[in-house]
């Protein structure tokens, strides 16, 4: 058989390998090691309370991961991020579906979401403290309100990008609503949803710290506040790294899901 249309040529495969360097390879370690070296060099010339040495930070990080209380704090923050994102995703999807189906509904909803986007995270913190009593619900509310517009817009875009041809083709087989969702809508919107989660994860990790700074009695934000009060830079950096590690781990999990779920388009993308 001759080379089928769309089958990647050797050249495309080579290009693919080059583009495939999006995972965490040795270059990533080299870059991070370089950053650590620069930090260490600076720490020789700058007062210790401003730039603690790398070994000291590593020691503090190790202390966090060997203390049940600290691990509980890290897990609490992680759970808050995931719960907030889950809530915003659910609400965003519930909003996006009628927006996609009704132009009238969309015309009313768009301005509200745009308005929401203009509200700073800190304002939501103040509002949450005034409106609600429970700390966990306050944080959940803040997380949902700050990530809701992005989720809604991304799910809406993914839905609208659905091929009219494929929709018509699937409809010609007379599927039930559930079958239409399962066979066409879900696979169509999945790439957009995964992207939305990756993008919002970074936003959420920043917002959760702000939310925890005011009012929480545990979590990374609370711990950062403690370090600030005792002017402990080593602790502040170590707790920041905890959050960074969490984000990297979750992003890795999403990438794994993406690789598995979107394997059908691997060649096509690499050939670009």
């Amino acid at each position, binding site marked *: 058989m001759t080379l*089928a249309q769309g089958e990647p040529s050797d050249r495309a495969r080579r290009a693919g390998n080059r583009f495939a360097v999006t995972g965490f390879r040795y270059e990533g370690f080299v870059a991070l090691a370089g950053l650590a070296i620069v930090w260490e060099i600076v720490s020789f010339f700058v007062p210790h309370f401003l730039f603690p040495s790398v070994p000291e930070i590593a020691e503090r990080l190790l202390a966090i991961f060997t203390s049940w209380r600290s691990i509980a704090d890290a897990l609490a923050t992680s759970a808050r991020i995931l719960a907030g994102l889950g809530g915003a995703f659910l609400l965003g999807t519930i909003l996006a579906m009628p927006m996609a189906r009704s132009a009238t509904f969309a015309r009313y909803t768009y301005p509200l979401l745009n308005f929401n986007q203009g509200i700073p995270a800190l304002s939501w913190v103040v509002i949450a403290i005034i409106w609600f009593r429970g700390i966990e619900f306050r944080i959940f509310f803040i997380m949902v309100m700050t990530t809701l517009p992005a989720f809604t817009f991304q799910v809406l875009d993914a839905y609208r990008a659905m091929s009219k041809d494929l929709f*018509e083709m699937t409809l010609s*087989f*007379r599927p039930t609503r559930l079958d239409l969702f399962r*066979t*066409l809508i879900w696979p169509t919107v999945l790439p957009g949803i995964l992207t939305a989660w990756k993008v919002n994860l970074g936003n959420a990790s920043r917002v959760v710290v702000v939310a925890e700074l005011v009012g929480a009695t545990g979590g990374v934000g609370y711990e950062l506040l403690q370090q600030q009060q005792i002017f402990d830079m080593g602790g502040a950096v170590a707790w920041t790294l905890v959050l960074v590690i969490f984000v990297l781990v979750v992003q890795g999990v999403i990438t794994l899901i993406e690789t598995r779920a979107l394997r*059908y388009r691997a060649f*096509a993308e690499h050939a670009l």
Partner: protein
Amino acid sequence: MSAPAEILFEHVSKAFSRADGGAAFEAVHELSFTIGRGELVAILGKTGCGKSTTFNLISGLLRPSAGRVVVQGHDPFADFAWFRGKIGIIFQNDRLMPWRTAIENVALSLELNKMPQKERLAIAASWLARLGLSGHEHDYPHALSGGMRQRVSIARAFAGKPDILLCDEPFSALDEHTGNALREEFCELLRQTGATSIFITHSIEEALELGERLMVFERPARIAYETTLRAGMSEQERDGVRGRIREVLSGGTAASDAGAKNSAVNS
């Protein structure tokens, strides 16, 4: 016509409103015809003459603005779910789901008909084999050539054993060689299945090769010329039909073939 009416169009019109709020655009105007069970009808017409809209009316994807469409005694738009598994469509482009393998694409109609997985995959595999795609069952569409993808879409339409098969220029996107090869196989399959088939094409030769009956549409969709192709027609008679079709397509006056058995009730 001896065969019972499978598809009936009675003074059907279909108008679309414009997005900018301008006057409605009429794609089908007062179209009337009947098609008997097991007939193979070719529809010819210029681009934009409403052929595809007529298909969408038959398949129930569109509701007529006026008139009546009856398929197997039912309204295809109102009784949409009743037609599950009864109408198959082969589109101009393959319309394969990129996230499904070839076999999963072929099995789609069977899956939506709630056929058990093992059974539907066996049927899908046999159709792929019939269309020369053995060994490609688990390939994704992007790994297949245009001709192979169109074969998969043909297999998908046939796998559901539809009573009615609507074919919307299925070979127009393929090169001449691939199109010709696939057309021959397709003709054979159509004859074997005995489904009522309507075939849209721009090619007069393709229409003459595939159709037992020809309808030429003018714009907006209504029958400008119609004829039945008898078995064993002489080349001279075929030339006559070719000439009339060309005349109608080039904007000549609508003609009716006095020598042909005309079943149209076009107003």
